[in-house]
């Protein structure tokens, strides 16, 4: 964003007390870990005021001052708490140096409207801080899992060695366990068999139905849509118990009346159950893309002599493709992540990754789960990127300028 306000230096009477406050906050934390919060506040405030005063005095050499603050903090962190303290100290020093100049030079106002009162400016940054905290809440647990998956111990906690960045505290053994343990590999393979097939079924049927639903005159449209979306709304435990009884009968029919192999039947049951659960997502995303679909395109296509099938594949399909793919991804992740229904419907031959993880969480607590979690998070990041690229492509195709 462009600079909206001409900035000017702020008086020391504003900067020094603010820095004192920051120092006091830091002092509370440090003081409390030493067992004396009051002393911590006072020392923190005093040191911070002194430091920032010195910094501001030589404000002309901003770069040098910021570097020296960084190294000062880095080194004292190392002496106080070892390697972990060094990193924390470095970060703190960098932030502190940036913050002093941000306040003193009045940079915080640069991107705000010049007519805002100082109260409004304060609120603006408090609000950002609150939002930052919520984002931290959203993302923190996922980030914390990653380093723990390299734990050399069989626990879910950070060991002292890990905090010291001692290589002995880290290992790949949980990843080894995932890649070499038959149970994990079998369940991973099962997931890779079940989820794609279920996805194909839900995407095929779902896309057809969504096209049908988006026609202008559909009797009972509301009711039908409600019915097709219900698998997403009905609590999983109810779907699962219903299917639990039902699929036992289906299995019997497939095996005894149609003579299908027992193992295959097991997979068929799970795949059918999962494709039902994936359908609402396909319906929702494909319908959403069809809303913006210009029907004159199909008419133009028909006008030029294309049959309905050709029109579908050459005109409609490329345009609704992003919706179909997004729906497919949702359906895939639904099946790939599903644990309740499969526990009721499947047998251990069809044990999938989430099921194995669930057993791990309930039964023998092993950090292999965290290794798997890390792998899955990486997979979802890849999926997210795919989706974002698709979105951009769709916007390009429709001639919209990228927002």
């Amino acid at each position: 964003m462009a600079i909206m306000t001409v900035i000017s230096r702020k008086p020391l009477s504003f900067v020094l007390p603010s820095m004192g406050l920051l120092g006091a906050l830091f002092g509370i934390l440090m003081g409390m870990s030493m067992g004396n919060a009051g002393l911590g506040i006072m020392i923190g405030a005093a040191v911070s005021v002194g430091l920032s005063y010195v910094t501001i005095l030589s404000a002309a050499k901003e770069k040098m001052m910021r570097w020296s603050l960084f190294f000062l903090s880095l080194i004292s962190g190392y002496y106080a708490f070892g390697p972990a303290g060094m990193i924390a100290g470095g970060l703190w020093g960098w932030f502190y140096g940036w913050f002093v100049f941000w306040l003193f030079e009045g940079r915080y106002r640069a991107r705000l409207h010049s007519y805002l009162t100082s109260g409004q400016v304060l609120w603006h940054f408090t609000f950002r801080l609150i939002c930052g905290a919520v984002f931290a809440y959203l993302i923190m647990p996922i980030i914390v899992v990653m380093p723990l998956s390299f734990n050399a111990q069989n626990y879910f906690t950070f060991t002292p060695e890990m905090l010291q960045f001692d290589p002995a505290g880290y290992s790949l053994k949980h990843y080894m366990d995932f890649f070499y343990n038959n149970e994990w590999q079998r369940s991973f393979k099962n997931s890779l068999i079940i989820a794609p097939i279920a996805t194909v079924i839900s995407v095929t049927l779902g896309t057809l139905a969504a096209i049908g639903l988006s026609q202008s005159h559909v009797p009972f449209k509301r009711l039908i849509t409600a019915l097709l979306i219900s698998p997403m709304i009905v609590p999983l435990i109810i779907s699962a118990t219903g299917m639990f009884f039902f699929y036992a009968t289906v299995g019997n029919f497939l095996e005894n009346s149609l003579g299908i192999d027992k193992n295959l039947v097991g997979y068929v049951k799970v795949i059918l159950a999962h494709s039902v659960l994936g359908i609402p997502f396909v319906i929702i995303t494909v319908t959403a893309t069809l809303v913006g679909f210009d029907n004159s395109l199909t008419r133009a296509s028909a006008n030029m002599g294309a049959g309905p099938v050709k029109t579908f594949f050459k005109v409609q399909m490329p345009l609704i493709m992003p919706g179909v793919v997004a729906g497919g991804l949702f359906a895939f992740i639904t099946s790939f992540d599903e644990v309740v229904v499969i526990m009721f419907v499947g047998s251990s031959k069809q044990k999938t990754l989430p099921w194995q993880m669930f057993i791990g969480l309930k039964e023998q607590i092993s950090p292999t789960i965290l290794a798997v979690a890390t792998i899955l998070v990486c997979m979802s990041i890849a999926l997210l990127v795919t989706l974002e690229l698709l979105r951009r492509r769709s916007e390009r195709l429709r001639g919209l300028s990228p927002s």
Partner: protein
Amino acid sequence: MSVNPITAPLLAADGTPLKKSLGRALRRQKIRALMLIAPLLLFVFVAFVMPIVSMLFRSVENDIVANTLPQTVLELKSWNAELGELPPEIVYAAIASDIKIAAKAKKHTKVGLRLNYEQSGASSLFKKTARQVKKWDLDADAPFKEKLIKVHKSWGQIEIWQTLKVHSSNYTSGYFLNAIDMRKTVSGPEFQPEEKQVLILLFKRTLIMSLIIMGACIFLGYPVAWLLANLPARQSNLLMILVLLPFWTSLLVRTSAWKVMLQQQGVINDLLVQIGLVADSARLVMINNETGTIVAMTHILLPFMILPMYSVMQTIPPTYLRAAKSLGATNWTAFWRVYFPQTVPGIGAGSILVFILAIGYYITPEIVGGSKGVFISNRIAYSILKSLNWGLGAALASILLFAVLILYWTYDKIVGIDNVKLGG
């Protein structure tokens, strides 16, 4: 020759009246649309609706008593259960005969198990009795009253007869009554003894915790949605990834992550102990209770709140706020009277969605909920898988489903199901 445009029908190219032709085209269009929908509709109906309906049917099904003890049920019809007198000999003879037949088919224990849900001890009563009755001669050994009472003293007490009579119908409201901490007795529905009342408490807890989770989601989601809607597109797309990443991450991964964070030896406690906010001996208990469930579920459901709010806020022009302010409104008034009312649809959509998803949750409470943070879903699973009281499980599920469907209907009225958006 002039054609009167009002009386003479307009003709289509092939000579049929236009109205008819249009009607036919419309019909064809409808049929084509239905043909496209039909395969899926059929699939969902067979593979989803039917299983659930047939499962829910178990909540009223109760033919086991009447099927296994037909003579007894018939004879008991003329016995007045409320007088406090034991039934006449003919009933005893009927049950002896019924049990003898049932024992041969090995069905007596099933009746025992069924009645044991209503009266403890029925299971062993039927087992013990069948063992003796097998040896009896139904013609020679009459009368049976004394004999049966000698086999088991329960036959001489009125309770078992009342239970039998009350639960002899083919369809019963008994499971539904049990699901709301009541029971069926000879004198109509009654509350369970206080020490057995737990299900209403669980329903209430599910409701209250879902409300808290919904509230927390509104509270945390609102500022974030506002920020996303008001930042320039490049920055907001980047931040959107932070919202979508948890949304896309496996549920079990997130739940296990919360286990890592919240347990007593976990990250948060370690951090608090390290900075001295909490003593090492007094680490906070944040998991295996309500706190764990609320924290983890709010995290899991938060994206479902942010996304609808975001899509509503995006449509609100920022000029409205500025106009309000330039007309003299304070910041708060401008927000509260101008901006907030326009975001209510977004809040409503997100809230119902979060609430619907929350009251049916099973996995997360199961892992982080302990004994006090579990939901009614966990009880349904317990009834079906562990205590094997399928009727009760189905009744609980029916009530839960009913609540969800009402919410779903409300959602449809307010938002419209075709307006559900996923991931922007």
